């Protein structure tokens, strides 16, 4: 089959229209989970079917797409989704955050501040923040409707009682505009402060669970906490070993079997940009530009 056999960006126009309606509703009610008729995509659930559908509904021929998987542009998931849209939509793709107009992401928010006009699309495995506390969907919907969020704090209480601190380190629950409690997808809690007041549109798609939710630009987003145990966006206490950045979120890489390890930026685009600018870290090759 040739690529021309597909409609632009794979999905047919009626489907995209349905998804756009869900997106508009989601933007109108920040943090509210809008049900939508999720389609089967040519990839397994868990690989970003929700995000791909949202991206397909947002793309226009003039867009530039960037795909992030755990911060990196060159891992399986990112490469295959980028190729998918190169073939089905013939859009320009990039690895540079600032150049992209649509960014689909899994588990990270880029380090570089996003700007107005950019769209950040998250892949969401489980959109319901209350799911593991209350298994009944009928009940969690009622809890959202009636703003009964005491249970969410019970979870944080249990964390402190057992570990001495809030041990939830990713998918850290947030409250949107003082109303809906939202699962920010499994981003590290380090990224939570970037959710609020962000200039870009943030869209969340959960394919298997058939839910879409959204944060319009400059939305008020607060991470839940206790007065005496405030929210702490922690990260590894190191600087990047390749670009020397002390402010970015780090991956820990074991380099041999005698306990050596290195810390590198999880956002590869950010790290390579900094290296190109001449920043160096502990393990940078010697003799290069300093």
């Amino acid at each position, binding site marked *: 089959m040739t690529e021309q056999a597909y409609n632009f960006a794979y999905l047919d126009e009626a489907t995209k229209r349905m998804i756009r309606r869900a997106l508009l509703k989601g933007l109108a009610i920040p943090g509210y989970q809008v049900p939508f008729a999720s389609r089967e995509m040519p990839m397994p659930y868990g690989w970003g079917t929700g995000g791909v559908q949202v991206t397909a509904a947002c793309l226009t021929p003039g867009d530039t797409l960037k795909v992030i998987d755990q911060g990196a542009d060159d891992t399986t998931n990112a490469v295959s989704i980028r190729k998918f849209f190169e073939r089905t939509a013939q859009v320009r793709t990039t690895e540079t955050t600032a150049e992209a107009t649509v960014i689909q992401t899994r588990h990270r928010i880029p380090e570089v501040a996003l700007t107005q006009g950019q769209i950040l699309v998250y892949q969401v495995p489980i959109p319901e923040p209350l799911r593991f506390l209350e298994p009944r969907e009928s009940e969690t919907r009622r809890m959202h409707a*009636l703003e009964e969020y*005491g249970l969410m704090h*019970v979870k944080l*209480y249990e964390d402190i*009682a*057992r570990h001495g601190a809030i041990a939830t380190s990713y998918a850290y629950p947030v409250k949107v505009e003082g109303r809906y409690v939202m699962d920010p997808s499994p981003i590290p809690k380090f990224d939570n402060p970037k959710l609020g007041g962000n200039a870009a549109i943030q869209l969340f798609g959960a394919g298997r669970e058939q839910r879409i939710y959204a944060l319009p630009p400059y939305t008020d987003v607060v991470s839940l906490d206790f*007065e005496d145990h405030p929210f702490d966006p922690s990260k590894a206490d190191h600087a990047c070993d390749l670009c020397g950045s002390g402010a970015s979120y780090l991956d820990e890489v074991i380099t041999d079997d005698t306990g050596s390890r290195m810390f590198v930026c999880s956002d590869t685009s950010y790290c390579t940009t900094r290296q190109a600018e001449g920043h160096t870290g502990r393990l940078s090759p010697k003799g290069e530009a300093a």
Partner: protein
Amino acid sequence: MTLHDVSLDQPLFRVEGLTKRYGQRIGCADVSFDLWPGEVLGIVGESGSGKSTLLGCLAGHMQADEGKILYRGRNTLTMPEPERRVLSRTEWAFVHQNPRDGLRMGVSAGGNVGERLMAIGARHYGDIRETAIDWLGRVEISGERIDDRPRQFSGGMQQRLQIARNLVTSPRLVFMDEPTGGLDVSVQARLLDLLRGLVRDMGLSVIIVTHDLAVTRLLADRLMVMKDGRVIEHGLTDQVLDDPQAAYTQLLVSSVLQV
């Protein structure tokens, strides 16, 4: 708790002509009574007499078909759901027969007691924990066990924990469904003792459903006897138990074993 904001010259809870049908069958029919602040009302009857249906309707777990339920003058049957839910987690409490229905088994004792506090906006971990330890003490559970799960507790302790969890927000009205069911007699006796103390100290109004007449003798001020979904006798506990009028009540009282 003080009762200063509860008016003592009008009933806290008034039920008028409450009826619940299951299709053609009657769950409970035409039940009316008043409950005054600080009063304990016992509802007794055999299995299938409509006690639990009545309690379910009163607490808003089930939708009644006819009648009125007025709590401090407000009709809870026509009240919007959010308002009723706020009521049921602040001023009301419900103690289930089986503690597993009323507790979160996967959450520590402290979390169980703290849940209602957090639901009404408590956001200070240290304060919540302090209150939880205080309440565990009041129901005779050692403060050291605050981080244990209810699974690791005995049946009697689970039931006491459920009571602590319900009373922590100082409710005014407590519904109890066979709170001593399934416990052995010595544990029952201690639990009843504890309940009696708490009811007195906090000035609680209680509606307690049971088939155990001894429980009502100890706890209840007034007694309602139900049979086939209807109230057949209603009066002061001692009066009903010592001088039963209805034939069924006589049978019920005489079938209690005297040791």
